[in-house]
């Protein structure tokens, strides 16, 4: 059992997500940075998609009564085991009765703490993910919560492929134009790829809210009939300031979608801190899929 001494700012349980229920209005939830989540799981010998902790900005203090193997991947923070510094991006042996602390993230917005065997909480609609929008699934961590841990895989810790190449600062986020790009003026489409957009503090697991050159609609009076949304959709509300949808978004929306972030670049968006500057560059679907293929081990 893992006891939560102090929960951190927003710590939730995420597995691969609650997929296949969008037709009933259920958000997918799941990790907003699926690559870091996958890598943490692989480092402890779990399958990709095993339930792990998603830690946001400031991490928790946890105590375990049994020995554990854990790994932390994502935004960088100081980690200690019984007060001793421990490394991120590596499998860590945590002795019975010890305390693990994860401090304030120095970079990025989220990191993932995977435990060999996974977190054993009751699935809802087939998933152990905390849905911060609808409330489905386990609640976010609070002091006093106790988390059961599943049986580690018999194979134990396995070699893990090297992480994806680190993004260069200022590397543009790849987006695929549409499906509603024809709702926007030519200058708006140009602004999306020429402009600099700043991440505002108003984001959460449902999406990133950006400030920057407003994207003007060709016909301001026209309303989009509600349509299904996708993670990564760049939605444009009437004020013209784009919102990039993340994993815990609603399943449908009524704002036009000028472009969709390529899946391969979703982690970069999910890790962008308030104040970070994003630029966009359009790619076609084939280029986006090719880029994704190089990270196949993590999905």
């Amino acid at each position, binding site marked *: 059992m893992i006891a939560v001494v102090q929960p951190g700012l927003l710590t939730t349980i995420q597995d691969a997500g609650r997929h296949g229920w969008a037709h*009933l*209005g259920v958000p997918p939830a799941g990790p907003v940075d699926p690559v870091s989540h996958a890598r943490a799981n692989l480092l402890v010998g779990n399958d990709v998609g095993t339930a792990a902790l998603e830690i946001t900005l400031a991490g928790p203090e946890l105590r375990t009564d049994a020995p554990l193997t854990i790994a932390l991947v994502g935004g960088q923070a100081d980690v200690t085991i019984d007060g001793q510094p421990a490394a991120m991006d590596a499998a860590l042996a945590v002795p019975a009765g010890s305390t693990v602390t994860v401090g304030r993230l120095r970079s990025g917005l989220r990191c993932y703490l995977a435990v060999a065997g996974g977190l054993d909480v009751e699935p809802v609609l087939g998933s152990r993910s905390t849905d911060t929008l609808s409330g489905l699934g386990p609640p976010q961590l609070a002091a006093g919560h106790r988390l059961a841990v599943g049986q580690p895989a018999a194979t134990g810790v396995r070699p893990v492929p090297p992480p994806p190449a680190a993004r260069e600062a200022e590397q543009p986020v790849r987006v695929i134009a549409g499906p509603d790009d024809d709702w926007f003026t030519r200058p708006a489409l140009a602004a999306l790829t020429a402009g600099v957009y700043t991440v505002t503090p108003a984001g959460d697991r449902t999406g990133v809210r950006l400030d920057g050159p407003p994207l003007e609609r060709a016909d301001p009076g026209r309303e989009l009939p509600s349509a*299904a949304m*996708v993670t990564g959709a760049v939605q444009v509300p009437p004020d013209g300031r784009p919102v990039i949808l993340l994993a815990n978004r609603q399943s*449908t929306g009524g704002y036009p979608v000028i472009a969709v972030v390529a899946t391969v670049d979703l982690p970069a968006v999910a890790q962008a801190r308030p104040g970070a500057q994003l630029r966009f560059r359009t790619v076609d679907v084939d280029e986006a899929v090719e880029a994704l293929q190089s990270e196949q081990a993590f999905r």
Partner: protein
Amino acid sequence: MRIRPAGDSALLVELDDLAAVHALRAGVLDAGLSGVEDVVAGARTLLLVIDPLTADRRAITAALPDLLADAAGSAVEGPLVEVPVRYTGPDLDEVAGLTGFRPAEVVRRHSAPIYTVAFLGFSSGFGYMVGLDPALHVPRRDTPRPSVPAGSVAIAGDSAAIYPQPTPGGWRLLGSTELRVFDPAADPPALLAPGHRVRFVPIT
């Protein structure tokens, strides 16, 4: 139909009307196309969520016109759900004022048609229904309520709905039902699905 990529992991199909959306949805579900993970209806669109690494998007795209044509010819009526409603909603009088009808007439007109669930969205189990009497088309409230009780029976614009959970909401509340609209432990978890038909039954 127009088929556009919605990023690298979905295809958005734009269709002429809701009947086409439901027909294509049925056709795609029956065909069991490899790599298609979810099929999500909208008011005039159908989204196919696909696995970007394994789905053959060109084959899927090519198959859609025939799937629509075949399914359109054999459309089946969705099941009928009867929803008992106590018409004591906080906005009933305001809707009466906006439409020029007495409250009892608003109730009569709201409960007369058989509605069709167009699609679900906004929150788990929230079904947007078409078939509302045009004389009852009123705009949303200027200011949404921070929390609408679960089971609230509501209208806005040309649509009707039942709020499944307490959420913020700007629709006009005509009444409430004790039916459980969304229960994650139930099979299926939602009372409604695209294509279901609904009749509201006034009770006291």
